[in-house]
């Protein structure tokens, strides 16, 4: 990332550096050997102290009858986030996980993308370098997303993404899934955002690496805010009112779909239009499962992630028919969550039938439905 030199900051640095005193003499050999001797003494002291502590711990009087007989289990780190999934089959049902039960992301969930050098390609502006800092995860800040230049998806190319346009997580996900071999242009200004976003997008490290190999240096860009991230973060953290936030996971064949469902109060409707989700502004796109508020619904589907067990984006795109699921739901006139989810289940059922697979059926949806406005 190239920063324009800020003249005021440059002057500040000049001023500070100009205060530099003359350099000191190089420390002589005597000083150095004294330091080395001191270091050796300190090291020796530490080793002695450690040995003493070990002896005290091992001594019979220190443990008494409580001689350790059980070896402490090895610390293997927290389990990765696992949402309950359905086993595909005739008796499969849609499972429901209360948002408050979803554990926070673990370090394993955070993606590390290091040193993917950015570049310019013949077909337009492209991805900038990303680095994910796991220690900073959870803080959503600014993100530069320059748009998507899809190689094979005319739906994305037709007016939804342009260079420099702010696009949503759904678009990003669709872009990543449909354009692994194509070009992609996005830039994370602050790496804090990427872990949340990529985790939300359900991308594996392998997928990111695949993407990283295809990226090139971006040209001049502008920093933009992507408020959808904040919305998703708040959903993922269970900040929605009790009983209203829900994560639904279901399985179809080899595909897994995870939906984050939350109440929505759209200020307007349309793909890419801004929405207000319980106070958290966001944007919806056609590849984010959507709802139709025309009948006064206050419910909405916020996120949509589809992936295969091997986390292959290409497989997911071809086999899981992500866009198909999204479009199907969008085309329904669901006035409630129930309706939307029924429609989704119906779609899954029909898609599975077409593939001669056993489809999961929607037998029960123990959701707390928000009152229709």
């Amino acid at each position, binding site marked *: *990332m190239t920063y324009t030199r800020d003249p*005021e900051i440059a002057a*500040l*640095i000049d001023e500070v550096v100009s*205060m*530099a005193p003359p350099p000191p003499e*190089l*420390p002589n050999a005597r000083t150095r050997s004294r330091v080395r001797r001191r270091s050796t003494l300190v090291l020796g002291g530490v080793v002695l102290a450690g040995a003493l502590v070990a002896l005290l711990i091992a001594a019979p009087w220190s443990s008494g009858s409580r001689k350790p007989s059980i070896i402490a289990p090895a610390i293997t780190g927290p389990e990765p986030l696992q949402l309950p999934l359905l086993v595909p089959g005739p008796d499969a049902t849609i499972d429901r996980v209360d948002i408050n039960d979803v554990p926070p992301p673990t370090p394993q969930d955070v993606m590390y993308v*290091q040193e993917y050098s950015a570049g310019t390609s013949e077909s337009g502006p492209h991805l900038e370098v*990303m680095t994910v800092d796991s220690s900073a995860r959870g803080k959503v800040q600014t993100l530069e997303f320059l748009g998507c230049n899809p190689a094979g998806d005319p739906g994305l190319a037709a007016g939804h993404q342009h260079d420099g346009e702010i696009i949503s997580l759904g678009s990003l996900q669709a872009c990543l899934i449909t354009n692994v071999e194509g070009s992609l242009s996005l830039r994370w200004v602050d790496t804090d955002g990427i872990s949340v976003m990529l985790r939300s997008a359900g991308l594996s490290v392998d997928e990111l690496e695949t993407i990283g190999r295809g990226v090139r240096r971006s040209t001049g860009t502008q920093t933009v805010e992507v408020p959808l991230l904040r919305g998703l973060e708040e959903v993922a953290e269970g900040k929605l009112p009790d009983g209203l936030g829900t994560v639904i996971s279901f399985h179809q064949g080899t595909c897994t779909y995870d939906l984050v469902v939350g109440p929505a109060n759209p200020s307007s409707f349309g793909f890419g239009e801004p929405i207000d989700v319980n106070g958290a502004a966001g944007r919806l796109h056609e590849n984010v499962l959507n709802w139709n508020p025309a009948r006064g619904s206050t419910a909405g589907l916020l996120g949509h992630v589809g992936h295969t067990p091997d986390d292959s984006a290409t497989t997911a795109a071809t086999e899981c028919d992500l866009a198909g699921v999204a479009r199907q739901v969008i085309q329904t006139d669901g006035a409630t969550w129930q309706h939307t989810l029924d429609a989704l289940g119906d779609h899954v059922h029909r898609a599975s039938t077409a593939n001669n697979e056993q489809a999961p059926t929607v037998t029960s949806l123990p959701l707390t439905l928000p009152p229709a406005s």
Partner: protein
Amino acid sequence: MERQSDAEIYSTSAKDLVRLATGLVGPSDAQDVVSAAMVRVLSSSSWARARDQRAYLFRAVVNEARMHQRSSSRRAARERKASSSEVVEDLTTIDALVVLDALSVRQRAVLILIYWYDQDQQSTAEMLGITRGAVARHLARAHARLREILDNDIHA
């Protein structure tokens, strides 16, 4: 290429090291930091194997400055605690050192290497032994913080 002696390397880099240290800890402690860093470097067994000795020295100064910063902040806290009378610090004069004091040592190091030494992000990363992404992050945060302070100062 023949390896230079320690004295030669130091004599060619000393001014730069002191400038860097001045940016990191201020002029009053810069010499001490450089001296301590040099003692540490010359006593280290890895110094002889260092491929880029200049970068090694820069990194040593930054590390020493970080240690210095930690100990001096602890000392300052102790002194504040021990002080019975209320000391009202004069913060009305926002000079360059006070402004830079709002940044971490790493952020300062990145700023100085990029602004003063005209290094790009990649070479800054190599000099500091961190990733380019980390350099970009430090730079962005340093910019944001400084802009905030400078803008407030202007509006105050």
